[in-house]
């Protein structure tokens, strides 16, 4: 009586076919990237060594290591974070805790979407026009980092807003009922419950900032500088630009070298992303509500 009819069998077959098709598409989407990662490791792996990481480039960047570029990227990311995290967290606090549902809030949200969507080279043009020329920072770490900061601001805002909104409204209401002010509630209840989510967003921003090339090309990153930057008014080398330079602009670079640089850069970015994702999952598992 409950035997599957012809129609049922056919339907089940069709369903399995569709599932298979979509699975294949998903795999085809991910597979090329895994293959590419494999090639990067295979070709760039052998050149990696402590020396490669901690010595200067030599012989017109055809030998030696990547130390100044590595240090430069750390400078650029650190200064960019100092500028964007406070602004981004403030913006997220406003949007999540204070903003009424009006046209201004909608415009702010639209501005955030657009900041994230403007091409990186247009951010670079803005950096040149505003920071290098108008504010007279010159081509410097300061100009490059501020450009990066504005470009990656949406990452901090979106991640922070999400973790603030994940704090249950009942927590806030309980606090208000005790007579606490808005800021006291935020300071003692909302922020402590969302700080780790905010950190996740910051790590994500670090990884995003470290990989950017176009915004720093004309604002503060140099093709080749044999010394390390001393202050934010110096220019600096950077990992991402270094990869571009030695793979397109410099003749006679041994093949393994750009692969090595690409491998170091991609490892930095992926490791930080993985940490951020793992952290987020750990937090989700730990949540008491």
């Amino acid at each position, binding site marked *: 009586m409950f035997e599957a009819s012809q129609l049922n069998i056919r339907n089940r077959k069709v*369903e399995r076919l*569709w*599932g298979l098709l*979509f699975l294949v*598409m*998903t795999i085809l*989407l*991910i597979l090329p*990237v895994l293959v*590419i990662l494999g*090639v*990067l490791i295979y070709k760039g792996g052998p050149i990696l060594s402590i020396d490669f990481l901690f010595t200067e480039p030599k012989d017109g960047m055809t030998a030696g290591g990547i130390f100044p570029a590595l240090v430069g990227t750390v400078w650029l990311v650190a200064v960019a974070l100092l500028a964007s995290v406070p*602004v*981004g967290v403030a*913006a*997220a606090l*406003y*949007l999540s805790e*204070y*903003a009424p549902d009006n046209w201004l809030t909608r415009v*702010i949200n639209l*501005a955030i*979407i*657009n900041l994230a*969507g403007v*091409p*990186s*080279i*247009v951010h670079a*043009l*803005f950096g*040149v*026009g*505003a920071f290098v020329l108008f504010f007279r920072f010159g081509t410097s770490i300061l100009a490059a980092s501020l450009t990066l900061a*504005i470009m990656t*601001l949406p990452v901090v805002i979106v991640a922070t807003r999400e973790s603030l909104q994940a704090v249950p409204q009942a927590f806030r209401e309980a606090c208000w009922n005790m007579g606490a*002010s*808005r*800021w006291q509630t*935020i300071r003692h209840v909302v922020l402590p419950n969302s700080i780790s989510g905010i950190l996740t967003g910051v790590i994500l921003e670090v*990884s995003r900032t470290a*990989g*950017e*090339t*176009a915004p720093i*090309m*004309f604002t503060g990153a140099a093709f080749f500088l044999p010394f390390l930057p001393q202050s934010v008014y110096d220019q600096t080398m950077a990992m*991402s630009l270094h*990869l*571009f330079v030695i*793979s397109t602009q410099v003749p006679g670079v041994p093949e393994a070298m*750009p692969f090595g640089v*690409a491998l170091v*850069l*991609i490892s930095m*970015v*992926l490791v930080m*992303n993985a940490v951020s*994702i793992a952290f987020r*999952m750990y937090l989700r598992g730990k949540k008491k509500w």
Partner: protein
Amino acid sequence: MDKAVQVLVFVGGVSAIVFIIGIFVFITKEGLPFLLGRFDVAEFFTSPRWRPTSEHNPTYGALALIAGTASVTGLAMLVAVPFSLGAAIYIGEFATGKTREALKVLVELLAAIPSVVWGFIGLSIMNPLIIKTFNVPVGLNVLNAGFILGLMAAPIMTTIAEDALKAVPDTYREAAEAMGATRWQVIFRVVIPAAKNGLVAAVLLGVGRGFGETMAVLMASGHSINLPTSIFDSVRALTATIAAELGETAVGSDHYRALFTLGIFLFLITFIINLTADLVVRGIRKK
């Protein structure tokens, strides 16, 4: 204290608006003298001759650059849209539990690979591969850049499309299943139509991403000014032109200002794309 904090976070919130207006003002400030002076609309949109460095008769036709950007982005979307939507449907509707989590994490990691690394992959892996497979003299062309760009845009489109599918209430699915619909009927007749706007927005944002991508296109497209007639032609994109030439121009020269004018053009187009995507998404919420 309360008042001070409120003002402070308000300033933070409004800063996003200040920055986006600031971007427009500053690139316009640098580009305007060219726009009001040397700029010729007809030449810009119809002439394929971008020769800003010619000594006697510099020309500023952006048609070939627009065609370069359009061909690369078009091919990228042809590759990425079906696969992203397919992957989003698989992750959102078919996969369960651990598989689903793992796939989502993988897709997120893919989105994190820096564009200069993608460009390098186009240059060092795709280039020889295309030369060998298709027996063509140059492997840096529309095909290479389009494929790379497709791989770059796919994770973003997948994530946004999956979000759109997830936003369809489960009650829709349950109602359809209760009527005896099979899983694929539920997906194609109920879930996808309900998530249509979100899916369109995902594609739009993917297009915006492809349009604005700089380093990967600069390195993988061959960088020669060309109206492409086949996918094996080298092209030059709008973004790549700015990246390649800005370093060689004198501040304040016509050439320098012309590059900022390209920037204004790019800004306006991505602005329109993002605005449209936002309006489309808002469309579903209203309903």
